[in-house]
């Protein structure tokens, strides 16, 4: 089931949005592209049997009149330095357009190509080649090993989980912020919320310390 802002898909913001059958399949990306045209905040979640499988959040808000771009930069950087944002790297597309990316690669997968190579080398010792027919077997074996090696290698480098938070800031004052959470973001909704609060300046920057 696809939920928009917590309710079923065709009842978003009281607007007449085509039912989910309008889209050939429950493609969350297509729905997000469609909803982008409304320029209203939305939260799309694809719920399946195991729970929420995929989320896209998109929101727009304005900051206070006195908040400058330098202050925004400070808030984003301070969030990145915090516990929640430490895994995020910042890709600067332009002064007013940045993407915060969290990428996680499975360290276990990293070992698979090495294990395949070691097992393959070990097995090669026991393969003898007395006839051409067996030679063909060895060639097939090598091709299989290479294929497995390449698949493991490709999966490790290109198959990691990525969460992206796109941030766009307007030039005029007060600064208008557009935030979008995308990618494998199911586990990152709390990161998104904390960043949003930080940008809006709703976090406590200081408090009573130990040396009061």
């Amino acid at each position, binding site marked *: 089931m696809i939920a928009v802002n917590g309710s079923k898909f065709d009842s978003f913001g009281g607007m007449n949005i085509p039912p989910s059958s309008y889209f050939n399949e429950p493609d969350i990306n297509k729905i997000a592209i469609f909803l982008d045209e409304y320029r209203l905040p939305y939260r799309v979640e694809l719920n399946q049997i195991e729970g929420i499988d995929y989320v896209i959040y998109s929101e727009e808000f304005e900051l206070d009149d006195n908040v400058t771009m330098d202050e925004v*930069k400070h808030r984003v*950087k*301070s*969030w*990145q*330095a*915090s*516990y929640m944002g*430490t*895994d995020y*790297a*910042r*890709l*600067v597309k332009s*002064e007013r357009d*940045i*993407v*915060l*990316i*969290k*990428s996680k*690669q499975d*360290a276990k997968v*990293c070992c698979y190509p090495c294990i395949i190579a070691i097992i393959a080398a070990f097995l090669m010792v026991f393969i003898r080649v007395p006839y051409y027919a067996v030679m063909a077997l060895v060639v097939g074996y090598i091709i299989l090993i*290479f294929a497995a*090696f*390449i698949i493991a*290698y*490709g999966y*490790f*480098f*290109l198959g*990691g989980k*990525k969460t*992206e938070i796109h941030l766009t800031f307007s030039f005029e004052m007060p600064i208008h912020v557009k935030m979008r959470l995308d990618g494998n973001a199911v586990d990152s909704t709390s990161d998104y919320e904390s960043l949003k609060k*930080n940008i809006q300046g709703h*976090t*406590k*920057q*200081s*408090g009573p*310390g*130990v*040396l*009061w």
Partner: protein
Amino acid sequence: MAEIPTPATDYSAQSKKRPLGITVISILMILGALLNLAGTPGNMILYGVLYGIFYLALGAFDLIIGIALFQLIPWARIVAIIMQIIGLVLSFIVTAWVGSLLEALLPGASLILYLAMIPSVIISLIVILYLMQGSVKAAFDSGKW
């Protein structure tokens, strides 16, 4: 009353987080470079001084790029991509050249050589694609803004 800096306000000491893939690529690069450097005396004796010096320079260059990648120095990513592309082009040229030489002795040799090249070409392409990903770009560019 003295102010105590909290983690939320002090980001000056923020360290760049190295992606695991970059760690793997840089370590493999450094190991390969060290093997190249270790083989230099043997190369000089077997194939001549010029060839040995070429391999020494190649090893030193790979070592520098490997260390720069490990330290997330921004230019290292671009240089590593360029090196992978040059390596791909060179391997095609060498395969075509060796294949044409062997073709006279052994018909179909160049086809076998091209087929043998496929795994290394795919791996190079995977590395290039990985180095061009936004997350890797971001890891190398984090200092800006």
